[in-house]
């Protein structure tokens, strides 16, 4: 039986740029900014790094293929460097590479860095699918975008649970309003304005039933983590953050081809189950103190609450309405504003989520600080609801 990597790897330094429309910043400059914050936080020199992982998803035309853009931008001294890509789980995948290398004993200190420069496409939203997805998909895919594919979760969810469109939009608006409130407290967030439930409900429709404020920001940004062996971590700092579980689940195709119900995401369920097992968590609703989940759209966050077993199937509305996921609630979700408010430079997002969990566990989250958190969880979902890759990472002191 495989042991997993619980308590074998610790994060000793992290960095994260301000996310947003960074018209003045090149991918190199974003990478350097996140990286310098991380190594200063860890108190290491860049020559201490044994191996590096670069996560970048869409922007290989700008950032470039391979990990060379990273190694050259940071002037890493001929160490092993690898680029990874796993849709929106790319940042978490980079962290996985670094953590597994340390856990394997191959290196003492590794770097994971995610970067994305999305604002050079010339239009809003993520890059158009048909130039990104394979040639067969180009022939048979519907004329779709990410908002539309995730909107279909809402259509089905509303239908399955008998939620009228007005009630449904109000439920989702509360999800986004909460994230905007949190993001307004965060100087590094892309969208720092509070919006009311009524403003959200009345915003222009992007993909029915999702409106403008149901969709996350599309941003430029970078985030980085320095990891080392757990038994060495306290040499670097008194409060290293330990990796309790790190799991990824990729679709088998059965959801798309066979039996997806479009009211949950099976990969999230599977990744969460594996992570809870690895971290020895039996009651996530009670034991997880806080979470940063993949709220690319309000409906995604809502459904993810059920997929992560934070609440029972079909019941998320009760928890949304009771404020359970608010900063002062029982299980704060998106304390940094989430993808919704902090923004979503795809390759950086997984590491940005970890940055917030790391700062919260160290008690350095300022006005967003959650009281005495024990376990923090990050969740990414890359792809579309019926075929995707999900990551779940659990960390604690």
């Amino acid at each position, binding site marked *: 039986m495989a042991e997993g990597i619980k308590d074998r790897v610790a994060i000793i330094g992290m960095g994260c740029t301000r996310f947003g429309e960074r018209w003045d910043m090149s991918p190199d400059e974003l990478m350097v900014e996140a990286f310098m914050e991380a190594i200063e936080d860890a108190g290491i020199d860049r020559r201490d790094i044994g191996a590096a992982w670069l996560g970048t998803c869409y922007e290989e035309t700008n950032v470039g293929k391979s990990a060379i853009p990273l190694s050259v931008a940071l002037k890493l001294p001929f160490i092993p460097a690898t680029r990874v890509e796993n849709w929106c789980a790319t940042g978490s995948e980079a962290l996985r590479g670094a953590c597994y290398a340390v856990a394997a004993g191959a290196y003492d200190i590794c770097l994971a860095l995610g970067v994305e420069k999305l604002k050079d496409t010339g239009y809003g939203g993520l890059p158009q699918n*048909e130039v990104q997805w394979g040639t067969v998909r180009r022939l048979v895919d519907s004329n779709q975008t990410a908002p539309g594919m995730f909107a279909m979760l809402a259509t089905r969810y509303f239908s399955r649970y008998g939620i009228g469109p007005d009630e449904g939009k109000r439920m989702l608006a509360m999800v986004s309003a909460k994230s905007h409130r949190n993001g307004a407290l965060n100087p590094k967030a892309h969208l720092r304005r509070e919006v009311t439930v009524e403003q959200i409900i009345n915003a222009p429709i992007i993909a029915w039933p999702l409106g403008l404020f149901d969709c996350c920001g599309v941003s430029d940004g970078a985030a980085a983590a320095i990891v080392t062996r757990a038994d060495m971590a306290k040499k670097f700092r008194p409060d290293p953050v330990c990796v309790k579980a790190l799991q990824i689940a990729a679709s088998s195709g059965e959801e798309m081809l066979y039996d997806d119900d479009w009211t949950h995401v099976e990969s999230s369920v599977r990744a969460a189950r594996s992570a809870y097992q690895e971290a020895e968590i039996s009651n996530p609703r009670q034991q997880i103190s806080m979470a940063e989940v993949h709220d690319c759209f309000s409906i995604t966050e809502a459904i993810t609450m059920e997929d992560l077993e934070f609440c029972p199937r079909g019941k998320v509305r009760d928890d949304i309405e009771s404020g359970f996921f608010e900063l002062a609630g029982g299980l704060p979700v998106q304390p940094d504003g989430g993808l919704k408010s902090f923004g979503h430079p795809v390759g950086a997002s997984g590491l940005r989520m970890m940055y917030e969990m790391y700062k919260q566990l160290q008690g350095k989250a300022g006005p967003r600080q959650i009281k005495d958190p024990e376990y923090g969880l990050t969740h990414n979902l890359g792809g579309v609801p019926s075929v995707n890759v999900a990551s779940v990472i659990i960390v604690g002191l």
Partner: protein
Amino acid sequence: MVGITSYGAYIPLLRISRKTISAATGWLGSASGLPGEKAIANYDEDSLTMAVASAVDCLGGTDREKIGELYFATTTSPYRERQGAVIVATALDLRSDIRTADFSNSIKAGTAALLSAVDTIKAGSAKSVLVCASDCRQGKASGSQEQSCGDGAAALLLGDGGAIATLEGSYSLSYDFVDYWRTEGDRFDRSWEDRWIRDIGYSKFIPEAISGLLSKYNLSIKDFAKVVYPSLYPREHAAIGKRLGAEPDQIQDQIFTTVGDTGTAYSLMMLVASLEDAKPGDKILVASYGNGCDALFLEVTSEIEKARDRRGIKGHLASKRELDNYEKYATFRDLLAVDTGRRGEEIGATQLSTLWRERRMVLGLCGSKCRRCGTPQYPRQVICANPSCGAVGEMDVYRFSDKRGHLFTYTGDALAPSPSPPSIYGVVAFEGGGRYTFDLTDCELDSLEVGMPVEMSFRMKYRDVSRGIHGYFWKATPGRA
């Protein structure tokens, strides 16, 4: 006896009133102010997609393996080189060891294809030939063709047994009468003076051919239950019948004021309409028009009673939606330079070797069906997606295009670039198994509901002007009433 064994038709859902066109372009002075409305292809339809739709209507549950040849008649094939007939055959998932041919360059090509199909069968080259005629001609803004030309298609299956109407004879006239013409590179027809076309061409050739047929076979106009010929000018259409000695109820109703002049498909669509009302023993005379005239006559058999379950002309005429916005029509026909936004300019390349490899999956909408557990799946798979099966390499080809389904979930997407926003798409769950996300067309977002029945329709998916590619695939529609 050789004859028609099945028939079908297609008229697009959208209609535009000729008044709407006049209101938009009449100020230019040359608009003809014709009565009624015309049928117009949606933004994702063209002569190929309409031909496929008429063939689907015609074939019903017919065993497609038995079709030995396919002829496609049109003057508006999207390609100058790349056969239309073989695209239609691939979309219909016909056998590949068949002969296909395009009949083109004259609006009488529809009857030319029909007569050739009959001769092919008589010669013993094939037992069953499918003829599709379809046209989607576009007139210049404010010109008479903008008012007169409508879009539509007809399909006839010809065979040597079990005919619903046998072909008894024909008489053809061929004249180099240059009424309308298009040369290489012309997008729109050019034409000579309308009065000359009407008086010297249309009003003369049809009676001449019909008279020739009657005398060749020693028949009288009174022998025919229906006389079918296209109506290019409603008044002259009636006058021709009168001059031939036909009673008004012998003349097949014109569809000029409901559909318009559908070119190669015109007389065949009217023939389909006549078959819908025909009784065993009826004789039907059909004439086309264009660079002369083909006249032919048919005798309806008792088999006609078995061929009533078509949408045909009546069904498609009754199911319609008016487009009261000329600018939208002009946009669909690419007459206006529309800003698609930067996103709309992102056109991925079409790899034709990929299309070739996946032609049955893409154009024919064929997926896989697991031989072991019976699960249909789309796109095609090598390993069965049923987690309790997982059989490797035990797949049969499975056609989804003729399966009905229901709408599992859907959205209307305002971000995706579309000529007719929002881009509506949804997950279709097929009866018998299999599901996939498809574009939805011929519907409004407000009219959709989870669980509603849908059917598949062959459509143009994209047009890559810079590379000269028309991409085709299947979309879901709520189905025509």
